[in-house]
């Protein structure tokens, strides 16, 4: 008999930090010690705390281990499975008491979440349909096909108040009804799994960790809208998700949960994968459909909306991964139950991807109406290294920054919009005092500028011009009129662009201007970057009194611009040639190198008479002054 299950996270995050090696080492160790008949190793989807990976959960005791490497395995097996006590060094520590946390339930990161969409992620083996069925999987589909009329399904989804999780928050039931009422056939349903926002990975977790939920949701949707064919459009950058979906689809066909005459209802449903080539714009629904059709991924004007004329000119319904994954839960537990969760206008829960300057990088699922502070500080653990929180970018490159004074805002579609940002798909990039807001705006804008498909000039030309202005400002060449130009142009791009990409691309610029205008002014008027990020405004100086002459900085310098002061155990940065990369600052163990911005009273120290190449560097003609 199996007495313990050892759930090893096999989400992409944990795999890249060594999850596969851990799993192999664990299976091997259990076999060597003859425990393989008592203890089962299960690979699951993402458990959430990606930063702590590879993570592992042991049942029945619920012990949670973090940062487990293959090297820890012998000791861990000996302690936990043979001697029966948790292996202390790998337990998470409580934030406040610093005592080891024994079980997953007691770990703040999990305790404060409400997992609905992610209920199976990290609990079941995503490559085994049995485990999904054991957790009531396909039950909702069975009930729907055996007892409900399509219109009843739509009514239930409407009553639940489910809104599209892709970003815009359009009521799902209303959208379904539009497609269902279109008399043209065949109709199609599509799952948008082209998750492309920088710092967003919540869809990946569901695709990798609970693929059957998406299949079940789409089949229910197909039935409700009279569509017999579905496509999952997924980006090629998610190879593991593609693999797990392929396995899941094959298993569902094998058990007769996809294909002809499902649950003897006469309803047929087929599902196919379409793999995208990684263009951000293909997450836009009209571009996505063109891409499925095998054409160049470029958006089209709407109307006609997909419900009117979509894939191959037929009525089509497109929903996000998270929306589809919520459908079986709503149908299983009822609209009544679901609509109690969340706020008046935004029902249910939302998965947020926490990234950037935050302790617990990973996924957090909370009901709508939870405050940003609770998500970032309560679950995310706040900003690491004792730095100060500055702002959070919600909604990816299409969203905006929300500064500290608005942290107590309850999060839903409308509150974020009121702050100038958007919910988007749920990415949250946290920034601390070391982040320059001009640079942040520049980063996200550059992303959109690169990803613009080029079809409409406001987006193609407008984002480029916005980027040029931001570049100028960050180089210290900005002028005050640039701020007006930015605002005017941003508004124009928003209003005139064809699709969501261009319509939202200026959001980071507009929100940083709104909340951090002083930083723009510092760059323009004082030529100063307050966060000391914009390279062209920086100076690097070695302080004589702190420098011990160890030469580490000089060896690190990629452009050989750090010299030994002739006859002394000191070093000197030749500023004319410095590229401001900052690797000397990072390498100095004595904090002897100061980074200062223009406008902060920086004085370049006098150049010593003789400069020598540091030891180990090739002598060149530059050696003496």
């Amino acid at each position: 008999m199996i007495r313990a299950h050892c759930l090893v996270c096999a989400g992409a995050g944990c795999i890249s930090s060594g999850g596969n090696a851990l799993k192999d080492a664990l299976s091997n160790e259990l076999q060597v010690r003859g425990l393989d008949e008592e203890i089962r190793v299960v690979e699951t989807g993402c458990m959430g705390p990606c930063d702590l990976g590879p993570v592992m959960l042991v049942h029945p005791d619920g012990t949670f281990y973090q940062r487990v490497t293959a090297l820890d395995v012998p000791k861990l097996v000996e302690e936990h499975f043979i001697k029966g006590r948790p292996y202390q060094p790998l337990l998470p520590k409580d934030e406040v008491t610093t005592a080891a946390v024994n079980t997953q339930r007691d770990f703040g990161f999990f305790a404060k979440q409400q997992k609905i969409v992610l209920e199976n992620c990290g609990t079941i083996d995503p490559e085994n349909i049995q485990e999904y069925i054991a957790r009531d999987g396909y039950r909702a589909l069975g009930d729907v096909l055996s007892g409900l009329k399509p219109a009843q399904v739509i009514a239930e989804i409407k009553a639940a108040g489910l809104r599209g999780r892709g970003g815009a928050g359009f009521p799902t039931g209303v959208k379904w009804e539009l497609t269902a009422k279109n008399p043209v056939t065949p109709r199609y349903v599509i799952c948008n799994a082209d998750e492309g926002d920088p710092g967003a990975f919540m869809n990946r977790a569901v695709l990798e960790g609970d693929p059957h939920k998406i299949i079940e949701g789409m089949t229910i949707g197909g039935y409700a809208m009279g569509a017999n064919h579905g496509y999952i459009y997924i980006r090629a950058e998610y190879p593991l998700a593609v693999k797990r979906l392929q396995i899941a689809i094959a298993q569902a066909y094998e058990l007769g949960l996809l294909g002809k005459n499902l649950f003897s209802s006469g309803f047929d449903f087929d599902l196919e994968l379409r793999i995208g080539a990684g263009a951000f714009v293909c997450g836009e629904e009209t571009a996505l459909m063109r891409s499925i059709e095998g054409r160049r991924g470029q958006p089209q004007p709407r109307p006609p909306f997909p419900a009117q004329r979509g894939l191959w000119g037929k009525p089509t319904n497109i929903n996000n991964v998270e929306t589809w994954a919520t459908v079986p839960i709503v149908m299983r537990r009822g609209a009544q139950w679901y609509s109690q969760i969340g706020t008046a206008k935004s029902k249910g829960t939302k998965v947020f991807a926490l990234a950037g300057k935050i302790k617990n990088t990973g996924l957090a699922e909370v009901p709508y109406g939870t405050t940003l502070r609770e998500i970032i500080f309560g679950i995310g653990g706040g900003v690491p290294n004792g730095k100060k929180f500055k702002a959070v970018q919600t909604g990816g490159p299409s969203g905006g920054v929300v500064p500290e004074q608005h942290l107590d805002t309850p999060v839903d579609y409308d509150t974020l919009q009121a702050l100038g940002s958007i919910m988007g798909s749920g990415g949250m990039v946290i920034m601390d005092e070391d982040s320059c807001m001009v640079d942040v705006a520049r980063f996200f804008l550059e992303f959109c500028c690169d990803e613009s498909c080029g079809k409409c000039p406001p987006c193609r030309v407008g984002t480029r011009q916005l980027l040029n202005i931001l570049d100028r400002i960050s180089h210290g060449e900005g002028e005050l009129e640039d701020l007006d130009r930015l605002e005017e142009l941003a508004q124009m791009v928003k209003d005139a662009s064809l699709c969501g990409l261009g319509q939202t691309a200026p959001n980071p610029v507009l929100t940083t201007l709104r909340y951090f205008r002083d930083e723009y002014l510092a760059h323009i008027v004082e030529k100063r970057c307050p966060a000391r990020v914009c390279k062209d405004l920086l100076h690097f100086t070695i302080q004589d009194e702190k420098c011990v002459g160890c030469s580490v900085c000089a060896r690190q310098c990629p452009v050989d611009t750090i010299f030994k002061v002739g006859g002394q155990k000191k070093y000197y940065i030749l500023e004319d040639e410095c590229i401001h990369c900052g690797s000397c600052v990072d390498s100095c163990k004595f904090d002897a190198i100061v980074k200062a911005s223009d406008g902060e009273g920086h004085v370049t120290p006098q150049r010593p008479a003789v400069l020598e190449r540091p030891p180990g560097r090739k002598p060149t003609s530059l050696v003496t002054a």
Partner: protein
Amino acid sequence: MNLAELQKLKEKAQKQVALREGNKKYRVVVSMGTSGIAAGARDVMKTMLDEIEKRGLADVEVRVTGEIGLEDVEPVIRVERADGEQTTYARLDAEKARKIVAEHLAHDTPVENLAVGKEKKP
């Protein structure tokens, strides 16, 4: 596939994952410290696992723990019932372990002549 078949499949599959759900009626805790292992606690546990599986008892989980504190009467196990009743058995071997499974776990009757302690925890 129809609803009845799905239900059957679910019941079968639930056995595979039941262990992750918790809330079992019985929890068997095996003392697996150095002295326990030396006295044969692993054999006792393995026998119990076998027997539980043979009898298809789904409402039982088996855990191991460190020294319970009864070193000279090892192997020791403690059977904890969900309502808080705890029975400690000592000086076990494979034969006795089987008996505990058959009587206590399968039929709710503690094996009085093997028990060395009994208490009720809230």
